[in-house]
């Protein structure tokens, strides 16, 4: 009956890890239209208003789109990465307990967390890569936009998506289901407005307090990173500083997120 204990045969954890990743891809593929709608609606509307309508009306300078496009790409990438990890986490740890099947799979629990962050990173990348060409279509020709730095563009996107995915793990494990609304109004909202998404960080020179206060906001580094790589002609932070900041935040969020995850995985 027990087929001579197949559970004694070696089972590489990578097999289990990739099976879980396939599960997330399967679920994401099925929900792709909703996923794109959820994560890119806001950035797309922003581009229609600020990148198309207002320039048409002459209320903002034509070149503004060069500042806005990298900001919007970073926003959709960040929002999608953070949401695709935190929202399911809140539900699956909270009321549906769906995560338990994966927590009982033969794999160390921290690798389940790593898999969730990996899947979130992929979804962040996907959202960023979707918004970039759509933005170009909506806003028309963008001064100084080039893809000669494709490798750097992709690296910043990857690092940014991973950072926000790890933040999603932290939020998803630390927050109660009742507080999801609160999370959006108190964390995500200010993050968007003070994330140097609509304006370059250099532009804050005129408000020095703000200029240094926003540095705690991870979105600043993703937006500046996209500017440094997509529209390098525009004012932006040094790419070295950006990479270092994102890497530091990634490690910090991963460490805190993993701690919160493990507290709920094994009580």
């Amino acid at each position, binding site marked *: *009956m*027990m*087929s001579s*204990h*197949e*559970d004694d*045969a070696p*089972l590489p*954890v990578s*097999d*289990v890890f990739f*099976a*879980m990743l*396939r*599960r997330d891809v*399967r*679920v994401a593929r*099925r*929900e792709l239209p909703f996923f794109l709608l959820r994560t890119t609606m806001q950035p797309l509307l922003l581009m229609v208003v600020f990148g198309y309508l207002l320039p048409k009306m002459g209320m903002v300078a034509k070149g503004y789109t060069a500042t806005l496009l990298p900001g919007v790409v970073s926003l959709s990438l960040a929002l999608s990465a953070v949401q695709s990890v935190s929202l399911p986490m809140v539900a699956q740890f909270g009321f*549906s*307990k*769906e995560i*338990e*099947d*994966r*927590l*009982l*799979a*033969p*794999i*160390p*629990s921290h690798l389940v967390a790593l898999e969730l962050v990996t899947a979130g990173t992929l979804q962040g990348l996907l959202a960023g890569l979707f918004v970039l060409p759509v933005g170009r279509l909506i806003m028309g020709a963008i001064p100084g936009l080039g893809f000669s730095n494709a490798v750097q563009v992709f690296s910043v996107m990857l690092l940014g998506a991973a950072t926000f995915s790890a933040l999603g793990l932290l939020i998803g494990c630390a927050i109660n289901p009742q507080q999801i609304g609160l999370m959006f109004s108190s964390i995500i909202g200010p993050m968007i407005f003070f994330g140097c998404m609509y304006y370059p960080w250099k532009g804050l020179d005129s408000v020095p307090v703000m200029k240094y206060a926003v540095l705690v906001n991870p979105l600043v580094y993703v937006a500046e990173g996209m500017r440094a790589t997509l529209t390098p002609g525009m004012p932006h932070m040094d790419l070295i500083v950006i990479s270092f900041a994102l890497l530091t935040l990634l490690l910090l969020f991963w460490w805190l997120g993993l701690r919160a995850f493990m507290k709920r*995985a*094994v*009580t």
Partner: protein
Amino acid sequence: MPGMIETRALRKVYLAASRKRVTPPRGTATPSGGTRAASSPQQSGEIAALDGLDLEIHEGEFFGLLGPNGAGKTTTIGVLTTRVLATSGEAFVAGKNVATEEVAVRRRIGVVPQRPNPDRGLNVIENLLFHGAYFGLSHAVSMQRAMGLLELFEIADRAHAEVEELSGGQQQRLMIARALLHEPRVIFLDEPTVGLDPQARLALWDILRILHAQGRTIVMTTHYMQEADELCDRLAIVDRGRLLALDTPSRLRLQAPGSTLIDLTIEGDCAAAASLCRRLSGVQRVDEASGDLRAYSDRGGELIPALIHAVEEAGCRVQNINLSKPNLETLFVSLTGRKLA
């Protein structure tokens, strides 16, 4: 391997602030059961969900953990399934230490949760196929086993349905199918019939009997006496994290004190009434708990008039009388001073 499952002096202490899943022990009865050890000193603010639990479960055994809410049943299952870390003590499943070899333990167990928790992002068959993939099964093997299990549990026609479309009983059967897919050595079921209608409950019992006949080791928690009695080879009665009794259901029934339990609901000073009742000949034992007197009688219902008389002599009034034969329930009450449900 001496047993399929072994626990040694297992203890789990929750801090009061984080006691989400533990109900603090409450109760006014003073059980005089000899199996209970003296209460170990506990720091205030700490709650011992498990308090020195020793268990040994044999291969192929259908083992029941019986106890009221907050007895430590779910915590025991949590420790054995690697989801709860014991504060002290050791536990082994299939010879593997649950704390240090958790991956090996997970590979050898199947878990059916208290409330169905299917993966709602996936449909019925995908729930099984991905579960198989987590356990390293090839797609072909998973598919073959999945269809076999769905047929056995009579939900094969729902293979491509969304899990939300299944009834509660069907979801529970899907959970059992999922737990069995990787052919684990041990199956844990945590109160599997809670929330099921009587028909679905009986259907589930049939499934459990089939699994037992296949020679699987099954560990089930329940607070339904009848369920434990009907299904289990051996039963552990636990309360407040301690083992109170452990034997086959039929031998446990013999341990129930007296030939009849007379339960009197009274109004007035319970303690005075109890002490008068204890003096009556034919009364083996009297327990008191919040307005209830439980007299274990050697002479069946014959003692009722004498008991009423004694209660009235103590200045109390009898409001209700209930007579029952000794069974697991009366044993449980005599051991814990608490009712099950």
